[in-house]
């Protein structure tokens, strides 16, 4: 019997919405189930999208037809380009967003994409684990579908902590998905517990902003989406303040109150988005930690304190906040807390983000072990598209590690795993000089076409840009200036894309044309490095095809380290890539193994 829905998405967070929209774009009748429509795509933590590597990821999402980039542009209050002085490959675009506006915009886009939305809480999956048939809602309804994407975020048996208090909840003001978690455990999926935390929010007018440093948009024309018209405008001011020695002192004296340090939270927290307690413990001599004061929305009366994530008791949070310059009379309207939640163990899902033990259940977002809206959105897109594709009998699509952060992330999650919430860093990529924000659309376009998630209109736009790109590149490669080829000149570190633009008279105010100039010049600049990186990767990728079965005893391979010999004799991997995943085996050992196999095959032939 034909079911009403083909793809059913559980959870309307950043992952869930992209999953639903992508499944619909691929061509499936899609439904999204989430407890509250008002909270679709709610930013649970800081009111901003992007950052280093994350900003680039948002642009990749746009490149394959996701919604996050456009919504971020439409609801942006302010824009900053992080890492401006660290090189264009690691520039990190970041916008402040109006949180409520962002929810509404995303919901509108969902409806437009043809996704049905049902308010409800899923308490159980129905049918056998190998092939899920439907979901049971808390009000007793059963909704059936052919494929499922689970995107429950921090809600699976979510436990909130503040001081000595612990209570169930997915995040502040939301209930915890306890029965669904129980169902997953009973179905014998391997899961683990992670934790993360958030900062207190304060009432804007209780702050004396005259004592703070103002921050406005960077004077750079920027927007995340290639479809957005015009750059992000400055609509709100943010402020910067710093902790005083007093702040650290309060924290140090109260550490025993913190659930993190008293041992009540057992889940693994993110090392790179640390709580303020962590910062003070790890760098006890430092003071003057920057704290950014960010509005939750346009003219919102609530401000978020970025950099002050804490789960101390309320009265101590009051003290901490009031020790900041300009915060003497600060009023906290929502206290910081941390959340501990269940997510899936590495190895449970494959590179299409399908749970291996099932035929039709996909996972995405925080429950993969990631952290961050951007990471969630990207994995949602991939899971949704692949769920739909499999259903329609189409080939799976997996992003390439060398050409996108999406690829890096999925590959890391599937092959390496993570024992703390996984956040993207530029250094996770071996091909960082190529994974830039300016060329994100070009890098993911082939993937987008394979995936079938990019609208015809967006494809048209792409081809238009591509034409300009081709012409510009030809012009630059042809041009010689005083006997030197412009290509060579481009490679000089002191020459910027703007300089090159001047040299060939390419003068434009159009954002996307300027971006094309940047891309063309940077591609030329970094070509050698990128080519070498890709070469190394190609070799590594082929490891999977190299069989090690001819080696009977690794003791005979004198060119590799003893450690490697022992580990290899014990584990006996079938191929070189199996050998690669053994920690005792180093790159040099792999090279030596290749040489050994080559010699061996020569001597066998003669």
């Amino acid at each position, binding site marked *: 019997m034909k079911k009403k829905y083909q793809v059913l998405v559980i959870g309307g967070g950043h992952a869930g919405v992209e999953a639903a929209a992508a499944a619909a774009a691929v061509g499936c009748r899609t439904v999204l189930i989430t407890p509250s429509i008002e909270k679709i795509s709610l930013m649970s933590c800081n009111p901003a999208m992007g*950052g*280093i590597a994350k900003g680039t990821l948002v642009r990749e999402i746009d490149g394959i037809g996701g919604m996050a980039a456009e919504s971020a542009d439409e609801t942006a209050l302010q824009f900053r380009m*992080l*890492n401006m*002085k*660290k*090189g*264009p*490959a*690691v520039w*990190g675009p970041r916008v402040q967003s109006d949180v409520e506006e962002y929810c509404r915009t995303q919901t509108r886009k969902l409806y437009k994409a043809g996704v049905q939305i049902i308010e409800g809480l899923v308490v159980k999956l129905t049918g056998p684990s190998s092939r899920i048939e439907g979901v049971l809602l808390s009000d007793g309804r059963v909704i059936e579908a052919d494929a499922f994407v689970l995107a429950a975020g921090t809600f699976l048996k979510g436990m909130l902590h503040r001081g000595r208090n612990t209570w169930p909840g997915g995040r502040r003001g939301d209930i915890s998905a306890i029965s669904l978690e129980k169902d997953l455990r009973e179905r014998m999926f391997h899961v683990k517990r992670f934790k993360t935390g958030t900062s207190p929010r304060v009432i804007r007018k209780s702050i004396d902003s005259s004592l703070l440093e103002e921050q406005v948009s960077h004077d750079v024309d920027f927007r995340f989406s290639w479809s957005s018209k015009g750059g992000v405008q400055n609509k709100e001011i943010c402020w910067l303040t710093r902790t005083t020695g007093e702040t650290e002192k309060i924290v140090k004296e109260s550490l025993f109150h913190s659930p993190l340090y008293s041992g009540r939270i057992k889940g693994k927290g993110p090392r*790179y988005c640390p709580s303020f307690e962590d*910062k003070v413990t790890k760098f006890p001599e430092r003071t003057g*930690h*920057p704290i950014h004061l960010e509005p939750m929305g346009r003219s919102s009366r609530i401000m978020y304190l970025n*950099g002050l994530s804490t789960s101390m008791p309320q009265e101590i949070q009051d003290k901490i906040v009031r020790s900041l310059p300009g915060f003497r009379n600060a009023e906290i309207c929502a206290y910081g807390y941390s959340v501990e939640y269940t997510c899936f163990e590495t190895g449970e899902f494959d590179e299409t983000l399908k749970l291996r033990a099932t035929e039709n259940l996909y996972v995405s977002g925080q429950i993969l072990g990631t952290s961050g809206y951007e990471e969630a959105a990207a994995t949602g897109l991939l899971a949704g598209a692949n769920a739909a594709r499999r259903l329609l009998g189409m080939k799976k699509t997996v992003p390439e590690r060398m050409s996108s952060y999406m690829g890096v992330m999925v590959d890391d999650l599937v092959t390496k795993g993570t024992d703390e919430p996984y956040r993207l*860093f*530029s*250094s996770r990529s071996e091909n*960082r*000089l190529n994974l830039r924000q300016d060329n994100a659309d070009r890098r993911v376009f082939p993937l987008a076409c394979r995936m079938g998630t990019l609208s015809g209109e967006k494809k048209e736009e792409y081809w238009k840009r591509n034409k300009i790109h081709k012409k510009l590149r030809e012009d630059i490669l042809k041009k010689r200036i005083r006997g030197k080829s412009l290509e060579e000149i481009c490679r000089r*570190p*002191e020459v910027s894309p703007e300089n090159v633009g001047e040299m060939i008279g390419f003068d434009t105010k159009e954002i996307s044309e300027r971006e094309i100039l940047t891309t063309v010049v940077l591609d030329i600049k*970094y070509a050698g*490095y990128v080519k*070498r990186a890709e070469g190394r990767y190609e070799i590594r990728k082929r490891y999977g095809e190299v069989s090690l079965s001819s080696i009977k005893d690794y003791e005979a391979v*004198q*060119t*590799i*380290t*003893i*450690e*490697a010999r*022992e580990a290899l004799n014990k584990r006996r991997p079938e191929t070189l890539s199996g050998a690669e995943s053994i920690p*005792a085996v*180093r*790159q*040099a*050992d792999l*090279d*030596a193994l290749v040489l050994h196999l080559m010699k061996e095959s020569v001597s066998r032939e003669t």
Partner: protein
Amino acid sequence: MEKQNELIVALATPEAVSAISLVRLSGRGASKTVEKLMRLKPGRLTGRKRAVGDLAGIDYIVAISWPRGKSYTGEEMVDLMCHGSPGTARRILEELENSGARVAVPGEFTRRAWLNGRLTALDVLTLSEKYKGGSEAESDLSEELNELKSEIEGLIEFSEDHEISGEEQVKVLMRRLLKKAEILVLKVKRAEILPRVFLMGPVNAGKSTLFNKLMGEETVVVSSTPGTTRDGAVRTVSLSGRNVEICDTAGCGGESLDSKALEIVMGSLKSGDRIVWMDPLCVSEICVQAEDHELLKVCSKADQQEKSAKAGWMPVSSDTGEGIEEVIKFITAPEKESPSWRLERMADLFKEAVKASEYQDMALAAEIVSEIFREAEKPERCGDAVERALERFCVGK
């Protein structure tokens, strides 16, 4: 070469009265041998263990064992610490010899470490510099590279969130490493095997004049009658900080062909030798196997020629000094893939990285540093230089 894994033993501390002497034992059966002599339970010293007790009635000692793969040499190893009188250590050595261990040759421990992949060739070279009394500075190049790498990454990933201002620090570190690499190039070049250079070409092509020019003094009889230099003169000189052996040869080719002299030269040529082939007229046929050698074709006496040098020939004049610098560069250039060649490449890369960081491209600088890292970590065996460096080690290292 010695058998790998054969049990070797050596005194690792100076043979003098001191608080403690250290005797090292490496190879298959090291633990068992000591267990027996100390009358320990079999297996007592398997893995990373420590045992205190009497050794064969000689001394009360501390034995520390390491399993394969975890020790300095990468093999099963035991360090024996005894009281520091030379007599005691001597007797322990003898006892171990009686139990089947062989006394190690200088550098053998380090060589094993290298062969077992515990050290890269570069480690060995820098270690040897350190033991020769060179400054500490070079020994930890790879450690500092590691530090530099993590500093840059920290700067890229976290400087915005946490306001780490490490930019200057990174630049300083990078410049310091550049300097070190440059110093190391010179030192390692000295440690490398001498390149041999043959000055060859037709009679009276100006070989001896160039030879003398390179020596900086008149040591060879120079005459303009063809065929004066009958038996090749050989000299070792230091050029651009590198010792080279230069052989002047009798002429070959040309009108008065001296076949006997040529035979002698050809007989002593080894593959890898460098040849400066000289001919003022750029016409002579080159009578060596080009693929076995590095070859520089020189149009000698360039100042006296009417026509300019043919393509592929470098104009050189010992009288005016034209082209001499290029000849020296050719003579002293490091062999491809040799440690000094790699170090020079590393120094060049450092220069690029410094420049990138000055133009605010830390991401590029980081990529270049990664390339340096790969260069430094390359495990291939750079034969001669490493062997030579190993000879410098005292026994027991």
